[in-house]
């Protein structure tokens, strides 16, 4: 899906099982920035976010045999591990557990800290075109690290509405991404 990948996901998973440094390098290069972006938004603190990313990668490395491609993509599996680490960190170290909307490139258009990958520019544009209520719901859910109940409280909407909104947001995103892909 992403032209920057040197390996397909299946090849990468196979490579990781051999536990070579090359495999680690490939995994890190492909996913560290995306994962770090999320961890940073959940935690806020730069050093703490680096620690969480490190713990996350160590755990991913140790548990790679448990990854089951039938159950989802490698990224989703990795994200769940890293996100859980981030949530644990916010809860144990009393970081402010709040989503930092001001950090979001979507709102500020601030690309300084953001990876400048050519293939991501179209996606960024698509994300920028999301409706505000869709942006909000995705930000809170995806970068918040909340349970259903917490997210529903945070956004002040019933669980049913939250699910409908999330679905509409992702549908909107999918359409925008599809348009970007067909434009290129």
């Amino acid at each position, binding site marked *: *899906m*992403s032209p920057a990948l040197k390996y397909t996901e299946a090849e990468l998973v196979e490579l990781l099982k051999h*536990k070579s440094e090359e495999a*680690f*390098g490939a995994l*890190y290069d492909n996913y*560290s*920035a*995306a*994962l*770090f*972006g*999320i961890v*940073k*938004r959940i935690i806020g603190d730069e050093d703490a*976010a*680096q620690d969480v*990313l*490190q713990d996350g*990668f*160590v755990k991913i*490395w*140790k548990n790679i045999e448990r990854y089951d491609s*039938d*159950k*989802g*993509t490698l*990224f*989703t599996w990795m*994200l769940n591990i890293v*996100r859980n680490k981030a949530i644990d960190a916010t809860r144990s170290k009393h970081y402010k557990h709040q989503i930092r909307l001001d950090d*979001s*490139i*979507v709102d500020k258009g601030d690309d300084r*800290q*953001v*990876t400048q*990958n050519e293939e*991501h520019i179209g*996606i*960024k544009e*698509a*994300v920028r075109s999301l409706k505000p209520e869709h942006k909000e719901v*995705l930000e809170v*859910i*995806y*970068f918040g*690290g909340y*349970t*259903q109940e917490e*997210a529903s409280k945070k956004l002040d909407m019933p669980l049913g509405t*939250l*699910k*409908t909104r*999330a*679905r509409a947001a*992702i549908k909107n*995103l*999918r359409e925008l*991404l599809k348009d970007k892909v067909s434009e290129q």
Partner: protein
Amino acid sequence: MDIKEYISSGNLESYVLGLASEKERQEIELLAAKHAEIRDEIAAIEISMEQYAHAHSQTPPSALKQKIWSAIESENKSETGKPAVAKVIQMAAPAPQSSYSKWLAAASIALLVGSSLLNLFLFNQWTSAREELAQANAAQDVLAQQFEAQQTQFAQTQQEFAFMTQPTTKAVALKGVPAFPEALATVYWNSTSQDVYIKVNNLPTPPSDKQYQLWAIVDGQPVNAGVFDARDNTASMQKMKNFGSAQAFAVTLEQRGGSVAPTMEAMYVIGTI
């Protein structure tokens, strides 16, 4: 289940976004295993969210890559080599819980000891109760047997009494001959039914190879009226053979089974009607 409806419920989005509860997660994974449509939908959501994540990516400091690899390598070494330092820390770490755990452990041991003692006590109680019950049952058996024996004897006595009190029953006292002056027996004879009973009042216990024999003297001739054992039960009457009219009765000691003719020297008692 309507797959299209399930897809539009928003549950799959919740699942990919990490919001689903454990129960929902399992449900969705089962459904995905069964239905390709759900699998495809999940994959599409995952890919779009992955792209969304890439759009928000932030490159960590370049030194972090090497730092993480070192951490992975030292993790590998500690796993294959000497025991991990981390493990020691982990054992010491849950200090705040330890006092509670100690109390819990102490309470468990106390409960275990208490429960064991109670078990021992109850077991002893049960054993002695069981023994007492067995004794009581045995005693009851003895009493029941005694009661049965008493009832049999009572029924017999009633029968004998009824026989004795019939107007047609005659009691004939057989008195000891000069050789056995203490010997005494009574013959009850009913003239209507012709039934004959003998009651031993006092006869010496015979040797085991001998029995007493009752003779009815009919027209001057002794007629065999049966044998009896005086040792059996001296309180009870013994039914003897029937015969016609008799003038006298006599008892002799004979060979076991009786004799054809009485042994006159061994006569103990005699009585006339």
